[in-house]
């Protein structure tokens, strides 16, 4: 990250929902790159001596290089990234971020786009919408939230999108019926989902039932790695031993010990950090490896996955 990092200044902080804070970053030097809809950046947080790096979707207009905006939902049971953003980061602070990368690009060949956002999962669609409007693309946004916690930008979206927007506030109304939403869409529609695992799973299940082509379904599943039990990693080639605490990801622990592993999404999706395993059983938590690869125990995505037992050996 060090050589590609961009230094930014926190130029605005807003409460956009009871548990969601929006941060505006402006560049310390020059201008940002424009970016493509659905892009994310990785924000590096220095909490004392501990480095946390989390990926967040950009939610500003992709053609506007004057600032980048992200929104962070407070996850009290997480490993600390969101708590740090909510409690430590102040107006005027300087942070390091990566240039934007994109693992959730719209497929512009689609006849129609159907967006399903759950809670803070609205963020990538915030960067889709200005570009969709500019191109006069046919799209619908279905936004599921609970207004006592989430529901950021609902009013703003209402005035921008009118009848293209459908909101479902589970605090005041019945849950959305995913099956009905999907079945109303013409052939050639691409579905995009961003939100909690339960939403992604229910849409995927519905889509499978209705025979929706897999190539027409896109979802952004990556989330910050979840904590687990501590374990020890032995490195076969370098002979190093690295201790992974319950709150650190294996990737973070390796980095803290000067073991550099290529990485991008840090959330088990992009496949960049794939690492061969020599010994020990893995608790696979990624979306990248196939079931076969996971069962064979050949490799691990250290950004999210952990050891099943107390010790594993990596072939690096």
């Amino acid at each position, binding site marked *: 990250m060090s050589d590609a990092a961009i230094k930014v200044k926190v130029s605005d902080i807003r409460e956009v929902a009871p548990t969601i804070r929006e941060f505006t970053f402006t560049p310390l030097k020059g201008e940002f*790159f*424009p970016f*493509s809809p659905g892009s994310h950046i990785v924000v590096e947080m220095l909490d004392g001596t501990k480095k946390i790096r989390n990926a967040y979707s950009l939610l500003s207009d992709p*053609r506007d290089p004057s600032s980048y905006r992200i929104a962070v939902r407070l996850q009290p049971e997480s490993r600390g990234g969101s708590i740090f953003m909510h409690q430590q980061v102040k107006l005027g602070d300087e942070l390091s971020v*990566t240039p*934007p990368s994109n693992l959730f690009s719209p497929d*512009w060949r689609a006849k129609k786009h159907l967006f399903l956002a759950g809670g803070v999962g609205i963020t990538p669609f915030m960067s889709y919408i200005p570009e969709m409007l500019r191109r006069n693309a046919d799209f619908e946004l279905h936004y599921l939230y609970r207004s006592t916690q989430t529901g950021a930008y609902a009013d703003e979206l209402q005035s921008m999108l009118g009848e293209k927007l459908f909101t479902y506030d589970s605090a005041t109304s019945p849950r959305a019926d995913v099956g009905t939403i999907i079945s109303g869409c013409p052939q050639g529609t691409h579905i995009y989902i961003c939100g909690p695992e339960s939403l992604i799973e229910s849409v995927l299940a519905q889509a499978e039932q209705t025979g929706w082509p897999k190539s027409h379904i896109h979802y952004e599943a990556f989330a910050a790695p979840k904590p687990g039990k501590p374990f020890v990693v032995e490195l076969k080639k370098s002979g190093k031993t690295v201790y992974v605490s319950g709150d650190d990801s294996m990737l973070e622990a390796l980095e803290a010990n000067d073991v550099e592993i290529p990485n991008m999404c840090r959330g088990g999706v*992009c496949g960049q950090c794939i690492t061969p395993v020599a010994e020990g059983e893995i608790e696979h938590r990624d979306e990248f490896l196939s079931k076969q690869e996971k069962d064979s125990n050949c490799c691990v995505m250290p950004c999210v996955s952990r050891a099943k037992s107390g010790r594993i050996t990596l072939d690096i």
Partner: protein
Amino acid sequence: MRVAPKPIQTFRDDFTYTNSDDAIKRFPFPFPEDEYMYSVNIEPHALPGPEGTVYEHLFDIDEHYLSEMAERKIVLEENPQRCLAMPHMDLACWDFIDRAMTTMSQDYPEYFSLQKDGDLWTWENRLLGIHDTFTFGDSDTLPQPALEYMGCQVQGDIAILDQRENDLFLDAGIVTCPADWSLAFDAGMSFSEWHGPVPLAHEAGIFERALKYLTAIPVGRPVRRLNWTLTINARMDTSPETYPNWGTDRDSITPENIGAKVYLRVELQVLDRMPRSNGLLFSIRTYLISMNDLVTNPEWAKRMHRIMKTLPPELVEYKGLSRYHPMLIKWLKQFDLEN
């Protein structure tokens, strides 16, 4: 001192193309070792590169600029299918326009200038006498389709790859000087599909590793690699579409004309992330040097001999060298007597 573009020379019929001493000196000789084998030879293309070299700028403009632009025009008139852009690639084509105009006007201010007034841009190309004002992103405000307009002002072929589902698709391009591949044939193919014919490399897992690397290229951090083959005569357009025009050239090689007629053809391939579209710009800048010019550098002459001697038979066949490969080794031997 940079060499200014020369008057137009030809890459067909009478083949008047020549390299000046300076062009020979800056030729990107592609062999770092005495033996050649495929590898993922990709490295960062840090800009600006060393002054005067082909790596100095993102788009290298050299003494052959006018000749190559004239050649491109001839090819496009003969076969408009050499420039294709699928409708979903429109924004990616504009990303390319931005990248080309912005860098070229900064890198060669004597030849190109760009003025921006919001989305209203004015571009001047003094080498080709082009002066246009247009609205950025609005293809109707350009005199030609976006990719063709810009592609006819940069040397080298351009492909723009769409990135979807962790793969790359060849969905746009302007390709008039290919080393025996067809844009119309490869259009829409995925990365492993369009590399299908390459021998040996699939088994070595090279394409999987390369794809993983390429899909992760961030904005503003281009990478490059060199590729090479041999071509008979200084012919830029060695495409499958025109094979009847050049396929039989391989039979015309004799020990007497081999130094003048066989050219080392080197492609400087640069991959650069397009910010607004997430497309990947793949520029393929071709450099040609005759064996006679190449052997004026004794180190290159020796190495060229060793490379040819040890080239695996599969590559001799794939690169289309079979007919004259033994003759070339024999001819090169005079510059590498101890080997």
